[in-house]
């Protein structure tokens, strides 16, 4: 067992590095952006279009970023006429399907930025999928 871990770690690393040109992985992200936060607000929302071109379901289980203290996968839902946020512990993207993270729906909840982020800045977020795939995605801060 012990011998397998370095291989696995190496594989994850390799996948991370090739994620930008993720053709061979089959999971890709387009139009990734984070809304610039108003002054005094320590939370931001990240949006993107996730695409699964593989023949298997892919399950997003976590997101991390060194630019934020905490990153959570959230979904805005409307219940009893009121919007509320629901924590999504995992999200499945079926084969040949896309999943949109968009205002009023799924979003990455980015808490307590470690530096001041302004429109035009870049934020790197690692999207972690079940099975070990890690996709490193550059999000653009937009106003």
């Amino acid at each position, binding site marked *: 067992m012990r011998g397998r871990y370095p291989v696995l770690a190496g594989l994850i690393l390799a996948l991370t590095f090739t994620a930008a040109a993720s053709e061979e992985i089959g999971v890709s992200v387009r139009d990734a952006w984070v*809304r610039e*936060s*108003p*002054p*005094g*607000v320590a*939370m*931001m*929302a990240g949006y993107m279009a996730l695409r699964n071109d593989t023949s298997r379901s892919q399950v997003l289980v976590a997101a991390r970023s060194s630019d934020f203290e905490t990153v959570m996968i*959230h979904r*805005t839902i*409307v*219940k*009893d*006429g*009121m*919007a*509320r*946020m629901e924590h999504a512990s995992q999200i499945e993207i079926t084969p040949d399907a896309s999943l949109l993270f968009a*205002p*009023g729906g799924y*979003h990455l*909840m*980015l808490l307590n930025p470690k530096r001041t982020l302004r429109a035009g800045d870049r934020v790197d977020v690692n999207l972690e999928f079940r099975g070990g795939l890690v996709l490193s995605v550059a999000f653009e801060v937009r*106003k």
Partner: protein
Amino acid sequence: MTLFPDPKPLTAFALNDHENRVFDLAGLKGKWSFLFFGFTHCPDVCPTTLAILARARDNIAKSKVGAEDVQFVFISVDPNRDSAGKLGQYVAYFDTTFLGVTGSDAQIANLARQLGAPYQVALKPGMESYPVYHTTTVFLVDPRARYHAMFTPPLDAETISRRFKVLRELEGAKAT
């Protein structure tokens, strides 16, 4: 946009704006008012809506009639965290003409009830972070302080400004 054929006159209420001035029924008279309920610790719905309203205001300001007779009011349902200073900073980020108002829970509930705007602050003692639920509807009150129309998501700046301009023209023609 949902238009009410028989707009409902609002009755007395009292809140405070981000410069600690009273914002009451008189503050709605003589202007068209777009009202939106939310809170500043809201990462998705509130900034999205306020950015759309800022664009809608730009469009209205560029029209022939302009935006002199229009105001945009963000009503915080979370007065515990949203002080006047914080609200002022927050709304000005989206548009320097926006007003931020809030009040006690009873004061907020009074106006919210009149507009049918549900909200709930799940405040627990000692909790620094707590969820706040609120409607995503944008309410339009006419210059006679009557609840005249509402916009529900998906909101779009162009649609809001275009429909508002038509409504304002129609109502202006009626008044003369």
